[in-house]
């Protein structure tokens, strides 16, 4: 196992190198100039040129890349053009809201999607199956921001049960923390629940027809033990795989959800940085997201060995 983990971790290095080159190149190819944005609307061309020089944006692209990647290798993401703070500090400041949102969303997703998927498969062809799948299609089809606005209108404006926006840090009180996370997490979970419920249904259906399930039933086991012990465990590998892949959907959703709910997390930081062409920040955030994504997929692969003893690395 350990040599496998080591190999996988080493394999992330070329992946990150490709991500770094692509992100750096894409940002430079994108229209826009951070110097012009920093200078403000009343600035002259000379002001803009002076800022470009100070930021090093007038140097050849290759030179800019070498300087940046050299710093990244030493663990220095540089300084934000706009915030005048180390990018690593900016990211650390924004991690908690995003981590909290993603974690609660994942918990909600697993709590709802897997039972719903199993139920739909178990009651295949009935109105329950059709209802679960119908709601899943709806959840998957409606854009995150529409779900967000509808939930805000219902639960924050009309019923006034929950706040419209904002985030409260955990250290400032659990009730406020929970209150402000409910709507964004539910908004984000809707898409994720829809995705996982559909996959769970398909995987469970496949296993339900397997020989060992028929044997278990023939031995007189009740439906619940059959479903939990013999069906769900064997159907878990594709479900876990999709949850891992779905992290990408989650990251995309976080960007939109944090904007709609005014949450100062990594998603908002990404949007702000992209709009301001804050190259060091965008590059660092995307690298961090990429590392997280790669590591989560590694964890997913490792989890297979626990779920299916036949799999060994």
């Amino acid at each position, binding site marked *: 196992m350990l040599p496998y983990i080591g190999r996988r971790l080493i394999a992330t290095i070329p992946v990150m190198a490709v991500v770094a080159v692509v992100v750096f190149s894409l940002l430079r190819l994108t*229209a*826009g100039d951070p110097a012009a944005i920093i200078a403000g609307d009343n600035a002259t*061309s000379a002001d*803009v040129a002076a800022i470009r020089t100070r930021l090093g944006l007038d140097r050849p692209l290759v030179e800019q890349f070498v300087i940046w990647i050299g710093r990244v290798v030493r663990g220095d993401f540089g300084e934000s053009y706009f915030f005048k703070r180390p990018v690593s500090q900016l990211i650390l400041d924004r991690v908690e809201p995003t981590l909290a949102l993603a974690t609660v969303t994942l918990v909600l997703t697993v709590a709802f999607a897997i039972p719903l998927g199993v139920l739909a498969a178990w009651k295949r062809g009935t109105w329950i199956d059709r209802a679960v799948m119908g709601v899943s299609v709806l959840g998957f089809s409606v854009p995150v921001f529409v779900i967000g606005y509808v939930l805000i209108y219902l639960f*924050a404006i009309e019923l006034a049960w929950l706040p419209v926006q904002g985030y409260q840090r955990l250290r400032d009180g659990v009730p406020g923390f929970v209150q402000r996370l409910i709507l964004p997490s539910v908004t984000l979970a809707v898409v994720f629940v829809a995705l996982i419920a559909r996959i769970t249904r398909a995987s469970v259906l496949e296993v339900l027809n397997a020989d060992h399930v028929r044997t278990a039933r023939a031995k007189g086991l009740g439906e619940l033990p059959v479903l939990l012990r013999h069906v769900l465990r064997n159907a878990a590998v594709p479900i876990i795989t999709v949850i891992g892949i779905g992290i990408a959907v989650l990251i995309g959703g976080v960007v939109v959800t944090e904007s709609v709910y*005014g949450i100062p997390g990594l998603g908002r930081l990404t949007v*702000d940085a992209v709009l301001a*062409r804050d190259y060091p920040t965008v590059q660092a955030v995307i690298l961090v997201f990429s590392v997280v994504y790669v590591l989560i997929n590694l964890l997913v692969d490792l989890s297979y060995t626990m779920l299916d003893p036949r799999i060994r690395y």
Partner: protein
Amino acid sequence: MKRRRLAAIIIAALGVFAVIGPARAETTLRVVMHSDLKIIDPIWTTAYIVRNHGYLNYDTLFAMDAKGDIKPQMVDKYEVSKDQLTYTLTLRDGLAWHDGKPVTSEDCIASIKRWGAKDSMGQKLMTFVKEMQAVNPKTFKIVLTEPTGLVLGALGKPSSNVPFMMPKRVAETDPNTQISDTTGSGPFIFKKDEWKPGDKAVYVKNPNYKPRSEAPSGMAGGKVAKIDRIEWKSIPDHQTAVNALLAGEIDMIESPPHDLYPVLKADSNVKLFNGNPLGNQYTFRFNVLHKPFDNPKIRQAVLHAFNQEDFLKGVIGDPAYYKTCKSFFPCGSPMASTKALEGLLDSNFDKSKALLKEAGYDGTPIVLMHSTDLAVLANLAPVAKSLLEKGGFKVDMVSMDWQTLVARRAKKDPPPAGGWHAFLTSWVAADILNPVMMGFLNASCDKAMFGWPCDKDIEGLRDAFARETNLAKQKQLSDQVQLRATQYPTHIPLGQWYGAFALRKNIDGVLEAPVTVFWNMTKK
């Protein structure tokens, strides 16, 4: 026995409360501004959000009142020598920085120097300044090489870059380097430790601020802070900001989009207030470097093809929030005039086509940059395209986000190679009150703002305006600049529009001023 002891404790406790009296609750104003505060140096950038930050944290020597007159602010009294070459300024008593140290002449001189190196009007003023001398800690002199009417106007200019006063140690920072020490002397104190870009910026009342005794008027008068704490919340999504206001989570939105006004008006707990009576001006900007707009006659054709009403209706819609104003300077301001613009901006397409024919327009498509992401600008370019085409032009409208436009407009390349011919924007009226302030009238070729107009006549008139100290003569010169700007068009004014603050009903004392200010405001 126990009961007696308990009763004694209760009575003692009540006695203590009676002596102390009820504590006054701290008032906190939660505001969504037009933008997030990312930079905190109001001299280093011209961004309006940083200027607004400046007005909370810093103070100015002079300020413009509601009538457009420049009044002393940090200055107690000032004298102008008979030859008009020496201005002697004396600071008010009791002025102090947020760290408790007194504001001195040396601080002010250093601040003026730093601002004068960055701001376009400041740079102009500094061409007249021979030297600045501290007479004593509260008095200093500005000695000029020749008389100019710019001194008070520049030091009291209401918009970016505003000459905010900073401690000498801060003001000595290179003008091209951002400051990190935020010590000011304004009515509020910026809480740098609570500032989280992308989340909030916090200001608390300056308990040691000594406001002027006069009533507040525009940017001038007594800046009395009546709110204990102000939080600028960053909510980039307009709909979410409006929802938060309706739910009472925030108290004010500085610039809600016009299309959400009906939602706000429908709520009995919310009111709209136009805090900026001069408003803003839409503007069409030419790039004179490239064909066909290198030919003034072809630019004149645009003056005939356009009309203001179409632009204003297309973007703002509700006539309550716009007005046509055939003047380069904002209607309602001292230099406003319709002279030389009669008969123009009437969408006379025949006249436009005739001028194009006379000028030999060869059908080169006009590369018109279209900003799509800012609601107050998004519909301008399509209206311009339609009117230009009716006036005989070919138009290639290129859509992009505002930040891309900002970057592209700085390029002098030919339009097909990534340059441009024209774009539309909006100016806050306070930035364009006279020919020197109005950046788009700067026709100094390479040194001019993007578009790079190059005209000795305009520059001569602007210099004469800067030298003139008599208001009536300044007005005459301003009219002449306007006439010349119709012959050699640098840009086209497309009318004035107004925005409103959205406020909870319990917010009062909001002042009418060209910049959003928070003194005098109360929250019940």
